[in-house]
């Protein structure tokens, strides 16, 4: 079945540093979604990317979808302690199911 590989598994940064997580698939994706899960919480939708080469921004967060629609990235500029959590990518391949990556756990040292 379809799989998405997400790296790194963990990332520790000092507050103010940048952070990037990557999501890769061996197959072409119809869309990709990103979710954030705060410690002890539930996943919350951040954004969906659909078009090849698409770039979307939400304040300090920048999301990219690769030209071949096989990879995506989430970049956070100047991390804050409120960014702590696990970030998941989820691939939509045209079926009713999403395939979630294993997530990148971000910790931010103040």
């Amino acid at each position, binding site marked *: 079945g379809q799989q998405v590989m997400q790296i790194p598994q963990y990332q520790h940064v000092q507050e103010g540093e940048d952070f990037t997580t990557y999501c890769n698939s061996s197959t072409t994706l*119809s*869309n990709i*979604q990103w*979710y954030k899960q705060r410690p002890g*919480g*539930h*996943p*919350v*939708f951040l954004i*969906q990317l659909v078009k090849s080469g698409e770039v979307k921004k939400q304040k300090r967060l920048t999301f990219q979808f690769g030209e071949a629609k096989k990879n995506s990235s989430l970049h956070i500029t100047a991390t804050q302690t409120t960014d702590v959590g696990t970030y*998941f990518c*989820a691939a*939509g391949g*045209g*079926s*009713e*199911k*999403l395939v*979630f*990556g*294993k*997530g990148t*756990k971000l910790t931010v040292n103040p």
Partner: protein
Amino acid sequence: NAGVTQTPKFRILKIGQSMTLQCTQDMNHNYMYWYRQDPGMGLKLIYYSVGAGITDKGEVPNGYNVSRSTTEDFPLRLELAAPSQTSVYFCASSSVQETQYFGPGTRLLVL
């Protein structure tokens, strides 16, 4: 709208006991999902449903059963609880292939 609600929030079961995890959504979504998340791990799909009366297996269905008699409700049944089923269970719903909205989760401990 309450969104997706799950009950109970936390439960301790003895090995061999059974229970039903409840999930209700009020967004009139056709698609509903059950995931489990083991400590420090990602989400694994247990079962999903594309509409009332239709259910299908996900990645890890063994030891679980579901039903979908209404659009709103999608209960998950554990018949013979095992320690390996200790996990956090999330229910989610969506409209077609769009954003999935997650419930707050049920934390289950099997001893």
